[in-house]
């Protein structure tokens, strides 16, 4: 090797990032985040049309949104459907995770596959499936029908963080509690559950977010009586020009940021509580 080549190799730093790479990756990040952030200034326009840049600045669109009965109904519907789905899916998911992570019985692999499978089935197929079967029992256009449809959809997403937390849980704590005379129920409620709670809450939040944002199944099932926020937004995006939309989008952006902070805090808590194995 020549002296020059050796010098070059000695100076080579794998952590070095050349400027073209910085430009490319920063542009990719800009591409990911800029269009969404753009909705914030757009939401402050007061005109009846959506314009860029907005000519009059104000909070009119937000005021209109919060005083609009139809939109408020949609928000309430979405909150209650997502809330109920999250509770149902978290309870089912917690029980299933306890069995699948700690249990010893035949067919665990198969049961795992069944629980994960709604993740793979295209939403439109699920939507048609629920449309046909909910029509049979007269639950089309009801919030209960939506909850039933969202439960299998959200189940994998609540099982995922819960079982991850369970796998990091040190079971000798349970053995200690049992040795000290606690019964199995007390051990679960006083020892196990408080420690795995951040993981359970993470699962509940995931389930809530998926149900809160779901639109494809909603299009088929909402009808006119159980219109959720995404369904109403869809109709408006598709068929009219609605100057409130950037404001609504900004509120959803804030919700995503809030969830991000919340799951971040929970992740930190999980990491602190888990003993390294």
């Amino acid at each position, binding site marked *: 090797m020549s002296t020059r080549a050796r010098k070059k190799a000695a100076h080579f730093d794998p952590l070095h990032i050349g400027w073209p790479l910085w430009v490319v990756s920063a542009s990719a990040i800009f591409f990911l985040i800029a269009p969404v952030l753009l*909705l914030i200034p757009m939401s402050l326009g007061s005109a009846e049309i959506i314009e860029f840049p907005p000519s009059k600045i104000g909070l009119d669109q937000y005021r209109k949104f919060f005083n609009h009965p139809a939109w408020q109904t949609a928000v309430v519907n979405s909150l209650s459907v997502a809330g109920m789905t999250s509770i*149902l899916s978290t309870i*089912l998911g917690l*029980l299933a995770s306890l069995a699948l992570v700690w249990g010893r*019985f035949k067919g665990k*692999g198969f049961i795992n596959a069944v629980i994960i499978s709604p993740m793979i089935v295209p939403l439109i*197929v699920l939507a048609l499936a629920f449309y046909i079967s909910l029509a049979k029992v007269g639950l089309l256009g009801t919030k209960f029908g939506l909850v039933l449809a969202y439960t299998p959809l959200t189940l994998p997403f609540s099982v*995922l963080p819960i079982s991850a937390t369970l796998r990091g849980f040190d079971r000798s704590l*349970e053995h200690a509690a049992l040795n000290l005379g606690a019964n199995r129920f007390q051990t679960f409620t006083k020892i196990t559950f408080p420690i795995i709670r951040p993981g359970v809450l993470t699962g509940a939040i995931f389930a809530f977010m998926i149900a809160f944002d779901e639109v494809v199944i909603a299009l088929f099932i909402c009808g006119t009586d159980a219109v959720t926020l995404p369904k109403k937004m869809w109709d408006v995006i598709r068929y009219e020009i609605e100057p409130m939309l950037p404001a609504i989008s900004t509120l959803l952006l804030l919700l995503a940021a809030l969830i991000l902070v919340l799951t971040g805090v929970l992740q930190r808590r999980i990491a602190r509580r888990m003993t390294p194995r």
Partner: protein
Amino acid sequence: MKDLPIHAIADKSAPRSFWRRPATQQFLLVVPALAALVLLFVYPISSVLLRSLFSPELTFKHYIYFFKTPLYTRVLWITFQISLLSTLSALVVGYPVAYVLRRARPGIRNIFLLAITLSFMISLLVRNYSWIIVLQRNGVLNSILDYFGLIESPMKLLHNRFGVMVGMTHIFVPYIIFPIYSVMMGMDLNLEKAAQNLGATKWQTFWRVTFPLSLPGIGAGALLVFIMALGFFITPALLGGRKDQMLSNLIQIQVVDLLNWPFASAMSVILLIVTLVVFAIYNRYLGVERLWGGVKT
């Protein structure tokens, strides 16, 4: 000791009846979830399958009609095309980001990760809507280009293939970045140093060391995205034109506008089978755990 079933320690009395056995009690915990899935997932999907095959006696006419009508085979082809292209473009956008994330200082890395995660968490509808605002005729992009005198008349960026590709790439990029980034975090950068010491140029180092080592991440991300893309509905409907409608969109039209449930069911079964075949490939080569991240068996 730690992994012993808890009941084995709590109660050591030897032979127990079926209902008192730990395995039975553990299995009972998973029964509610299984019952819910049978009732709310297996049964509805089977009714789609039955609806596509029986009307009321067994017939394959809907499937035959699908594959004999050029319109539908073309849509199947378009679905593949859009899925493949959007997967590739998400790879092209996402790979450099994952590469930089591996090497950046923690400060910049955290800013990047925050932006990616936030974008990932925002409502799908909002993300698609933001592209309508940017790409429409009198939208942000056309306004900016016009302001700088770069275009004579507004460009058509929406309701065509370009709009669909932009929207889908935007949604898929985080799904590409995360698996590649996690594979890269496990990569020993000294291998790159060794390659350079042995006289490799920067490009040789990348193509013969870094890139092959990141292939598992690329494969996992790309297959996941491709599976998602096959069944995509929102973006083609909102950002695409008439020629960019995918199988999902046709199913919706059949159900909502034409009320042709049996044919919609047949199309759903075709879409489901295509998705399952791709998933089987994924599972064969990469293992479900990558997607699952969770319960090992």
